[in-house]
Each structure stands twice: as C-alpha cells, then as structure tokens.
C-alpha cells in the first residue's frame, strides 16, 4: 500500500528540524520506505510504501509517531504530539437515536453519533489542499471530513443520511448469497455471501460495510441530519468481499489489514469536532460505542540471549529498552528475561522474532557487523544437471549456436498437445504452458526472417507434461533450430555434440509428428530414444533432447585405447550405389566389415560416386599391400551383397 503524506501536515504532529530529505532517509533506513519526495503545488509530499503488517503507520499520525522514535537515533530531536479533541460526549452501548443488532464476529467495535442540522458547503482551503496533496479530490465538507480523518488517523469513517435509515434501526449481519445492493458510486453488486452488510427496518441493505456506503442511505444536497459512523470490521470478511467484487476502496484496503479498535474513539471525537466546525451541526449528547471485547494489553516474552543471538551482536539490556520504548512498547526486565507489553496499535508484534526486529531496526541495521558464515558445509548433490547443461551450452555456442530464452507461456497454437491452461492469463498470447519447444523455436526462427546467412538458435528450458491429479512433469529439454543451413552442417553439429558428450549413439530413420516424412532421425543409445533430429514440415532443421536422457547416456570419461605402434594404411575408394541407399548404413557396414578397418569417412561425392577414406590398422604390425587388398576385396564384396554398390574402375 502506498500513501502520500504532506510534509506540512506531518509537522503539525511532529516537531523536528529534520529536512524532508533527512527525514525520508532516516525513515527508510529504520521504518517505512519513502519511495520518493515530490512537490504537489507548493507542498512537499512523501510517497511512502506501507507493508501489509504495518497498517498502524498508514496515516499522518502513524508516520509522525514512527519518525519521532527514529530521528533521535540519528541525533535529530523529534517530538510527537497527539491531536487535540474537544468533543466530550460520554459513550453508551445503547442510545435512543439508533437501535442496533450487531454480529460481533463481523464488527469488533461499533460506534456512531447523530449530528443534526448540518449545512453542506465547500471545505476551507487548508483542508482542500491537504486532501489534494494526499491524493483525494475535495467534494464537500461532509465527504472531505471522512477523507481527512482517514488520512490523519488511518481509520476509515462513513456518514449516513440519518433520515434515510428507516426506523432508525440497523441490523449488521453477514449477507446471503445473491443479495443485491447499489453502492453510492451507482454500481449494483450481487453479493457473494458472507459480506458485512447493514439492513434497516424496511429490510433494505443500506451499507456494504467497510467497502462503500449504500446509495439509498447516502448523504445528498438535501441532507439535514447525519450519522457519523466509525467501526472496526473483521479484516477477513472485508478482504473476501473487496476481492470478489473487485471493489478496492481505500477504506477496504485499510480494514482488510486489521485495524486497531482503539483508533475508533479518537477518530470519532475528531470527527465530531470537524462537523461542529465545518457544518455547524449539533452532535447528540451520547456517543454510541459497542465494544464488547476491549483491547487487553498483551506481552511478548523473550530474553537477552535470544535477541543477541539472532542479531549476532551483544546489546545491553539498556540498549534494548531504549530501542523499544520510543515505539510505544513497554519492556520489563527480570534478570535476563524480558516481557514486552505491546500497544494496541502494534498487534503485528506477536513472537520473540518480532521483538528482535523492532530492536534491530531502531538500533540500526547499519550498526550490525558483517560476519562471514562459518561451520560445516553441506554435502553436494550427486549427478546434478547444472554442470552438464553448462557444458552442452558451451559446445553449442562454441560452434556458432545462439542461445535464446523463449516464453514458456504460449498461445494455444504453440502449446503442443494437451497443454495445461492458465485460469487467469494476461492474454491469449500467453495462455498455455508449452509441452514442446519445437513451435517456440520455429517462431524464434521466423522472428529473424530477414537474416539470409545461416544461423543456429538453441534453448534449454522446461516443457510441462500434464499428469492427472498431480503437478505436471517439468522436463528440462535441449532443443535447437538451424536456419539457412545445409542438412549436413546441422547434422554435423549434433554428431559433434554427441561425440563430445561421450555418447554411443546411432541414428535410426523413423517418422514422427511435425517432421517431413523420411526426414527425421531417432537418436538412440541401445534401444532407448534419447532425442530426435530432422527436417520439420516448415523446412527448418530441428533437434530435441530431454536433458536427463542426454546426461544418462553421456559418459564422463571414455576408456583409454592404446595408441597403435604401427602406422595404419590409408586409401580412398570410390563406390557407386543404386538410388535410395542410406549412406549412414553403408558406412556402418564398412566399419564392421573387418576388425582391421579402424575408420571410414566419406571424403568426396560427385554425381552418383562417393569416395570413402579407409583406415586399415593392425594392432601389432604394419599391414602389407597384399593383406590390405584382401580386406578391401572382402569389404567391396560385402557392400555389393548388402547394398548393390560397386567399385568405380
């Protein structure tokens, strides 16, 4: 929650010589974060972020109180003064002018007062300016009083047109599902049920409590008598209603954080004063105040050792007390044990750790030492994928690949089959959790359609495979796409990658979805597919490996093969084959034709002729020409029998 606090208004309750800049800096270091200081008209205004636990500081008075505790720690004197009120009415749990029936689980404190014969007018300029600087638009004195008190105290208040409350009776209850109510902004709401509403004698709903008043009980230009209304509501109900109806008023944002019930009385009395001054109205002699369970002082217990251990420093009892007292806490020591009484407005402080925080922020985090960790280091995880992934990325980028990070949230047409859908997507273009990287990478390639030279994009990212009744499997996947490049170049990169990862793989032509028929290879180790490579229907060359499969197939080290003591015989032979012969199979066959053939490579091709370089290697001697000839003949014979290939003469 962000609030705006005008400097001049703040200084009505905070006496200090601190400049706005210094005040903002000190407050940010020890309390609330001042996001910026701005000028609105001639006035300096602080933009302050209030965290959800500190609704007590979401007001001019709240900030003044914090600043008065913080500034002296920077050797800047500061004094906080509570606002003065003149209204001296006594409080009663029942009054003549309003009969009530209240569900106390919904409303912890219910107070109100009738003010008669008010005159609607514009507010004095000073009040108008303060409202503008705080971010509200001045309307008339009645509305302005509500906003003024809300900004000053952090307590929302409401004003009913008293004469519109039929029977001068209020029934505060939980709504039933489907009940309808029009709020004073003219919006008609169908209630989800369990909302806090107020019903009058005619059975009309006249207030969506804590969120916005009802139109049928709203103050208008003919209003004579008003009911000034200050409550503490159950934060859970307020939040549920405001979220369900998307009705996020400043009042509901305050109420849903859980307000201090002790704030009701001073806010109401300040309101009476303002009504007297600004509307010339006459308040009733009795304040209605229904407060069945008043705040009882709580104490949080801890000890010196606990506080110092959490902070990593040795504070004295006195230093601890001096941090707590200015914030309104009341510490009592008994030996090394401390019992800290919590003021009503600091109900967020519940456990010893909360005391540690209050001590530390006022003592100053800047005054704590920077201590390096010591102690035992945890055991690392075996087979962690991170180094492996780094290696893969290094190889691919080393061979010219460009890494991309594409969105895992994609439109339906890029999601792949059976993808999980978001319930509240930002838009159709990011509605599904993808089950494949293929379509994302094709899109990435298309985004570079102006590029004419070859390029290679790759990514390692999760795909999300749904499971019934469980979270999806998040499958970390390597995928890439080659554009404007030859099949051989692309395949070479994949072969090189598999070799560098020490994977014993084989390519098996197998069709699959998305790829052109007969243009896809399944990449296998043994019988297990570890990935795929081929030409997509779009014409792009694509590959994909689940990282886990790749890592499992990858050996850290190859085993050592002794370096031969004798030179190998190397010769080129040129063969021709019938149409539609897989060269991959031919080379595999050649390599396995004789155990003395140590390597076969395709070195040249011209029309139907393919030149292979053959390495003949005997482990313990140099092969003679005759011996090589024998092996060659056997090789050519095998190739002829298997593929119908023949030697070029």
């Amino acid at each position, binding site marked *: 929650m962000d609030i705006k606090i005008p400097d001049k208004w703040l200084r009505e309750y905070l006496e200090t010589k601190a400049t706005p800049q210094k005040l903002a800096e000190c407050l940010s270091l020890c309390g609330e974060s001042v996001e910026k200081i701005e000028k609105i008209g001639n006035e300096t205004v602080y933009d302050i972020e209030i965290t959800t636990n*500190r609704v007590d500081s979401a007001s001019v008075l709240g900030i003044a109180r914090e600043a008065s505790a913080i500034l002296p720690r920077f050797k800047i004197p500061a004094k906080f003064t509570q606002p003065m009120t003149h209204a001296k009415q006594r409080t009663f749990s029942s009054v003549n002018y309003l009969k009530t029936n209240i569900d106390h689980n919904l409303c912890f404190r219910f107070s109100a007062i009738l003010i008669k014969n008010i005159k609607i007018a514009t507010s004095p300029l000073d009040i108008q300016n303060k409202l503008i600087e705080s971010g509200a638009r001045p309307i008339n004195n009645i509305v302005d009083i509500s906003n003024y008190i809300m900004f000053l105290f952090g307590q929302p208040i409401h004003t009913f047109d008293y004469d519109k409350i039929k029977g001068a009776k209020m029934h505060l209850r939980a709504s039933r599902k489907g009940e309808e109510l029009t709020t004073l902004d003219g919006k008609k709401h169908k209630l989800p049920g369990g909302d806090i509403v107020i019903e009058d004698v005619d059975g009309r709903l006249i207030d969506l409590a804590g969120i916005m008043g009802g139109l049928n009980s709203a103050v208008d230009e003919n209003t004579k008598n008003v009911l000034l209304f200050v409550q503490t509501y159950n934060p859970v109900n307020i939040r549920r209603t405001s979220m369900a109806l998307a009705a996020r008023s400043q009042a509901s944002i305050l109420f849903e954080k859980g307000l201090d019930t002790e704030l009701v009385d001073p806010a109401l009395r300040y309101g009476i004063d303002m009504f007297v001054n600004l509307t010339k109205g006459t308040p009733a002699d009795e304040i209605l105040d229904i407060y069945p369970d008043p705040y009882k002082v709580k104490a949080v217990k801890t000890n010196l050792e606990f506080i110092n251990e*959490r902070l990593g420093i040795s504070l004295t009892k006195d230093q601890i007390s001096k941090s707590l007292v200015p914030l309104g806490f009341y510490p009592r020591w008994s030996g090394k044990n401390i019992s800290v009484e919590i003021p009503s407005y600091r109900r967020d402080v519940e456990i010893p750790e909360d005391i540690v925080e209050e001590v530390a922020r006022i003592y100053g985090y800047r005054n*704590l030492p920077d*201590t390096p960790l010591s102690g035992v280091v*945890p*055991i690392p995880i075996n087979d962690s994928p991170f180094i492996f992934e780094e290696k893969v990325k290094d190889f691919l980028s080393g061979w010219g690949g460009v890494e991309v990070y594409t969105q895992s949230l994609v439109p339906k047409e890029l999601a792949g089959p059976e993808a*999980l*859908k*978001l319930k509240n997507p930002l838009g159709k273009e990011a509605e599904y959790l993808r089950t494949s990287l293929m379509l994302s990478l094709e899109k*990435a390639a298309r985004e570079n359609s102006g590029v004419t030279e070859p390029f290679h994009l790759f990514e390692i990212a999760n795909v999300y495979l749904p499971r019934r009744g469980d979270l999806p499997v998040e499958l970390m996947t390597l995928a890439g796409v080659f554009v404007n490049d030859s099949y051989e170049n692309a395949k070479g990169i994949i072969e090189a990658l598999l070799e560098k990862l020490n994977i014993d793989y084989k390519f098996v032509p197998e069709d699959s979805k998305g790829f052109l028929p007969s243009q896809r290879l399944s990449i296998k180790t043994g019988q297990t597919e570890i990935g795929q490579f081929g030409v997509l229907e779009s014409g792009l060359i694509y590959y994909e490996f689940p990282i886990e499969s790749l890592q499992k197939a990858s050996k850290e080290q190859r085993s050592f093969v002794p370096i031969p003591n004798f030179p190998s015989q190397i010769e080129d032979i040129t063969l021709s084959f019938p149409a539609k012969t897989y060269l991959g199979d031919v080379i595999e066959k050649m390599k396995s034709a004789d155990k003395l053939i140590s390597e076969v490579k395709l070195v040249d091709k011209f029309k139907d002729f393919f030149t292979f370089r053959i390495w003949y290697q005997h482990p313990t001697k140099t092969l003679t020409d005759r011996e090589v000839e024998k092996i060659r003949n056997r090789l050519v014979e095998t190739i002829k029998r298997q593929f119908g290939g023949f030697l070029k003469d």
Partner: protein
Amino acid sequence: MKEEISNIKNEAIAQIMEADSATELEEISIAYLGRNGKLTNLIKRLKEVPPEERKENGILLNEAKSTIQSFLATQKGKLSVTARKWFDPTVPGAKPPIGHLHLVTQGIRQISRIFENLGYVRVRYPEVEWDWYAFEALNMPKGHPARDMWETFFVDGATDPKLGQTVLTPHTSNGQVREMQRIHSTGSGLPPIRMINIAKCYRRQSDASHVPMFHQFEGLVIDKGISVAHLKGTLDAFAKEFFGPERRTRLRPYHFQFTEPSFEVDVTCGICLGKGCKVCKGGWLELGGAGMVHPAVLKNGGIAPNKYTGFAFGWGVERVVMMKSCLEIPDIRLLYSSDLRFLRQF
C-alpha cells in the same frame, strides 16, 4: 665430402647474393634444398660415409643448410618491396561462426559460481507448484493480504486436498520448504543447509520493467546460531564479488510473511558509489528482499526453530545482471526476444 659441402655452400651463397627477385630466390632454394637439391643429395649420401666421419660431416651439412636458409631469408629482406613475393597480412580472417550465451545464462553462471564457492548447493525446484509451497508453507494462509504482492497465475490443473491448487510459482521461495524436506532424506537428515535455487518464476505483470516470466535466485542458509550479522556478511560478500569490491550494501526494514525480521537490500550505485547521482537518485539501488527465516516456515519444513535459525534472500537474475553491466536496455522484454541483432550483442 667436407670439401664438397663447403663448395656447395659457397656456391649457393654466391648465387643468393646476386639474386634480385623472389622467384630467383625460390629457384635457388629448390636447387639446393629441394627434394633433389644439391645439398639434399649430399645429405642422402651421408650413409655412404665411413661411420667414424659421419658425425663430423653431419654437423657440417646441418651448418651448411642453416647458413643457406639464413642467407635466403636475409636476401629476401633486402629485396625491394615490389620484388618481394606478394603477401597480404591484412586479409580478414575466416572466422568460425561465433555463438552467444544468453545474458541470463551468463548471469546465472556468475551467481552460481559465487555461491558454490561459499559452499552452497545449487538446486532447482518446480515452476508449476502447489499453493502450499508457494504460499501457505511460507506463512501466508489463503486470503492473506500479503499474497497481493505476488500477482499469481493460477493453473487449470490438479488440486490436492492438502497442498491446494496448482499455481505458477511467483518466486523461488517455494524452494525453501522443499529444500528442508530434501535435507531430511540425506545423510544425517539435519541442517546445515546452504541452498542456491535458481529457477523461472511467473507473475501477472507486463511492462517495460516487468516480464511475466523471469528468473530468481534464492539463497537459504539454516544452521545453529545463524544471525542477521551472517546475512549481512553474506550479502555484502556477494555484492562485492558480483558488482565489484568498491560496492557496499545496506539493509532496510521490510515485511515478508516468511521472514522475521525482513529486509530490503540496497547496493551502492556503480556510478557514484553511494554519493548520489542522476542515475540512482540517492546513491543506492534496490537489490531485493531478504530476512531471517520465520519460525513457522522452519516448522513447516520439519526443522526445530528452537535449535536452528536461518536466513533467506530471493532476487531477480535479470535485475542484478542489468545492474551489474549498467546495460541501458529500455525495455526488459527485449531480453526475451529472439532477435539476433539483440542476442549477438552479448
């Protein structure tokens, strides 16, 4: 043979001295040192020389060869530029294709390296997560206003009676309780924990400084006697190593439901080093949140809060990368475009 060597050498030198073109020198080189050159032929005949003279002749042959080579080189240098053999050393190199690792990958590597050196164990926990790990276990019950800070995507997926609905995790803090649970299944089943969890996170936001998909790194340390001072020491060490030794950090109070106390961490601006300048407005840049692990979170992870304490922090990878390099990328969404003109810059 000695005489022959000497004669051939002198003859070669004489010819070299007279040569006045690169071609001529090339021819001389071939005539003496080529495969059938005069000196080469002499070397071939060395095996006919009686063994006792072989060594001496060998030395002489080598000396002759290097003398001829040296004279050839010197004479080449003496030739006028036009007479030299043309060579263009400025011809552009034939570069291999140059690849690129994404900025986010580079950032993740630097971050993991720093923490791994401090004994942290890198992990990765789910992106698609149960509500319980993302919120409830972190002391944020259903309907708690603190949840508003994380604009959460909900997934039309499984609902578990205990763990709640499926969400996209809005922060890497979902890894905190998961890591505590993992520890129970290892070794002693007890802390120490030093975790660095780097993963994708998602929030319902999209503008020039926010992207719905981004990366966070989450540190979690749990041990006996871990204090705020340890957190300060660790974050300061990270900032000095990642951003530079002249940088400093500071803590400001903040609130998270799953840490107590909670902090915002700032680092001094890299341009003004904390003095305040046009870029940083005040000398400090916001790094992200941190805090001491809330006892309720320790309990949810099955760790006794009266024995162990810990700290945690979770920051944006993109954010620290951009802060480190002072990259003035006007729109953070550009990081996730596939435009080669962008990707090839890094």
